């Protein structure tokens, strides 16, 4: 187990340096610089320009800047935002819980609907239901998130008035941040109705963010189930005269779950990518919206730090998924 963990961690080291180098490099090969970007239509004198660049430490050789950058990161300092002048790690940690909360709700939505849909399609293989579910999942998988989000807002918020248009909580409530997870913080606080409001605001963004994972989970569950249903032990179970619910639920599903859990693990990256669009549409105060705003406002250091932090999150999740495989199927621990 330990050598497995050690191997996985050793792979992460070059990946981490690769990511920092890319984040650092991409920002710098862009034409222009932050000072020019900040000054708009104004013409600033070369002296003013040089003084501001020096203030940002961007007048030094690139290798020196990178060396300082990487040294700082190893000490937990991801730099300071150009725009807000706050440490990037603080900004990230302030917004990250919102993204995680949305991601978890989207995943619950995807699993709760995707799993039964996949099973149902497999059981009713080659019927109208199967084709219908698979057709719809293809539509869901190909759905442009931005368009889908706006469509739901127009229908449920503007026309039917059932859900709030955007945001994370009604402005009538002010919940003191403790964990950063609003569903938990609103229960810890004493404001009546805040929890309901937080839940209410989660509905549409979770549906939008969960749509693509839902489609993938439904399809994967179906194919995993089909594979398992043709196994000998399922035939034996049927032959024993077990009720269909026991055959599908107990014997088939348990074995199909290994594939499904793998797929769910892989969706974390998809969720983070989807969060960028979903958070922008729903004004959701998470890291997706933050990184987009930083790109648009040319906050070079926030983009650089944000990319590294997001990459670190994905690396951590991948590591956890790898470990889980090991736990589910111990044979993996012994393969190199």
């Amino acid at each position, binding site marked *: 187990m330990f050598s497995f963990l050690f191997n996985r961690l050793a792979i992460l080291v070059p990946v981490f340096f690769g990511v920092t180098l890319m984040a650092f490099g991409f920002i710098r090969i*862009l*034409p222009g610089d932050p000072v*020019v970007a*900040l*000054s708009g*239509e104004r*013409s*600033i004198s070369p002296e003013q320009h040089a003084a501001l660049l020096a*203030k940002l430490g961007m007048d030094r050789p690139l290798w020196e800047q990178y060396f300082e950058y990487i040294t700082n990161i190893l000490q937990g300092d991801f730099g300071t935002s150009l*725009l*807000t*002048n706050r440490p990037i790690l603080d900004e990230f940690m302030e917004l990250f819980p919102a993204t995680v909360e949305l991601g978890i709700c989207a995943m619950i*939505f995807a699993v*709760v*609907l995707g799993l039964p*849909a996949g099973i149902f399609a497999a059981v009713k293989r080659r019927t109208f239901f199967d084709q*219908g579910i698979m*057709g*719809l999942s293809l*539509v*869901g998988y190909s759905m442009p998130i931005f368009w889908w989000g*706006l469509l739901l*807002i127009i229908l*449920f*918020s*503007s026309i039917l*008035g*059932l*859900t*709030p*248009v*955007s*945001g994370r909580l009604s*402005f*009538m409530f*002010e919940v003191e941040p403790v964990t950063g997870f609003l569903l938990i913080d609103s229960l810890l606080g004493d404001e*009546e*109705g805040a*929890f*309901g*409001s937080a*839940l*209410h*605001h*989660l*509905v*549409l963004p979770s549906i939008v963010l969960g749509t693509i994972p839902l*489609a993938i989970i*439904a399809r994967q569950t179906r194919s995993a189930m089909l594979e398992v249903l043709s196994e000998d032990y399922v035939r034996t179970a049927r032959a024993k005269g077990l009720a269909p619910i026991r055959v599908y639920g107990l014997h088939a599903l348990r074995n199909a779950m290994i594939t499904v859990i793998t797929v769910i693990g892989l969706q974390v990256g998809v969720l983070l990518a989807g969060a960028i669009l979903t958070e*922008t*549409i*729903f*004004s959701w*105060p*998470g890291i997706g*919206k*933050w990184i987009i*705003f930083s790109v648009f*406002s*040319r906050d070079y250091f926030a983009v650089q730090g944000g990319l590294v932090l997001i990459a670190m999150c994905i690396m951590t999740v991948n590591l956890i998924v790898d470990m889980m495989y090991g736990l589910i199927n111990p044979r993996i621990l012994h393969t190199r």
Partner: protein
Amino acid sequence: MKFRIMGTVAVAAVAAVVGVTLSQPAAAKTLVFCSEGSPGGFNPSLHSAGTDFDASAQPIYNRLAEFEPGTTKVVPGLAESWTASSDGLSYTFKLRKGVKWHSNKHFTPTRDFNADDILYSFNRQWKEDHPYHGVSGGKYLYFGWMDMGPALNAIEKIDDYTVKITLNAPDAPFVSNLAMDFASILSAEYADKMVAAGTMETVDTDPIGTGPFEFVSYKKDAFIRFKAFDAYWEGRPKVDKLVYAITVDPSVRYQKLKAGECHIMPYPNPADLDAMKKDSNINLLSQEGLNVGYLGFNAEKKPFDDVRVRQALSMAINKQAILDVVFKGAGSAAKNPIPPTMWSYNDAVKDYPYDPAAAKKLLGDAGVKGLKTNIWAMPVQRPYNPNARRMAELIQADWAKVGVEAEIVTYEWGEYRKRIRAGEHDTALLGWTGDNGDPDNFMFVLLGCEAAKSNVARWCNKEFDGLLRAAKKTSDQAERTKLYEKAQLVFKADAPWFTIAHSVQFRPVRKEVMGFKIHPLGSHIFKYVDLK
């Protein structure tokens, strides 16, 4: 996937019932503004974007002078009155008495606003040895952009309620600069207290001002909350609470406005304007913006150094087509370098007519045949130019009709301006949005001989420059008006720019909002706003 649709409906319906039953009506009068982004911070001298000013300068602070809402007229603010010396070099400000400061958990004021606050607010930005100069990053961009450092000679406290500012050269637009957001007045007492507490940055993150609204809290990318300041010197605002619901996407802002989740929204999506006009719950306010979009001819390069070529190329462009196609009605034709909402706008100036035949003849007179040139188009949308690429294509087609072959060139935005400053272009599209409502801020900044080295037209006309310099020296507005009117005639005759348009700014507000006015400088001011 059938489940998905059913699930969508079911989850939405359940949550809606939960949410509706748990939501409570607000007792206090709350005005909600769907703002377009998160501010960088709450000190307007450090954070210089429009979003920053809306969140700090307007609700929280005041300045020595203020702009009258809806106009660019400078009126008394924290200074009750001011007088200029006869040589135009010094200004004496009489400060308002009895102006109260806000309070928060870090600070309770023990005195009213006075001259020390003025000295603190300006010296912090101006003097590099000021203890607060380097705090919170210490980048005072607007102070630099307005050339305040070189302009100032001394700021002196005569007594608690009198301040004298001496300049190095007469500069009439200076008082307008003092009404700008970056010149907001912060509390010196609060600053001193935070020095003692060892948390100097707090003055910039937990703001204390004299303005109509007190800062309550801020959650990045979600809300900014303010409450009415009971002791505000102009009288308590009419709403009790002011909330900025930060909503980045303009289409979503519109949906929020329709759903009644906010009362006022900035920067609507042009595609939504028609629907807004038809919406019975919404008033669509509009006003010409304080901006100008133009095509500048590089007067240092041949053949654009010949006035006849500049005039001919101006006559070859169909301006109305640009207004129809690119601005889609949200722009008005520009003939002067300043917009018509600005004082000294000279309506007597005659614009060049669209006349390809005359243009062709004039080019022939100038000896120009088979001209090959370029049109630089900005890669970004700006208030004065919603689609530079499309505009360049229209100009390219118009010029082709008079035998001029133009190539369209574009670069990344930072690179674009850098190369223009280096003078690499033949002709380039650009524009300007005014800072302080003074004509000097357009004409001198963009077209004066000092700016010629770095600006699009690289044009220096001694007569034009002389008029602008004379207008800088006198604080008599009637006299300045005459000088600027004349300068506009010189500008038009010499045609360094093909003036294109002033864009119209739109603000959709809900019907229950009363007393909101569009501000020509783009700020959002809520101190006089009420709700039905």
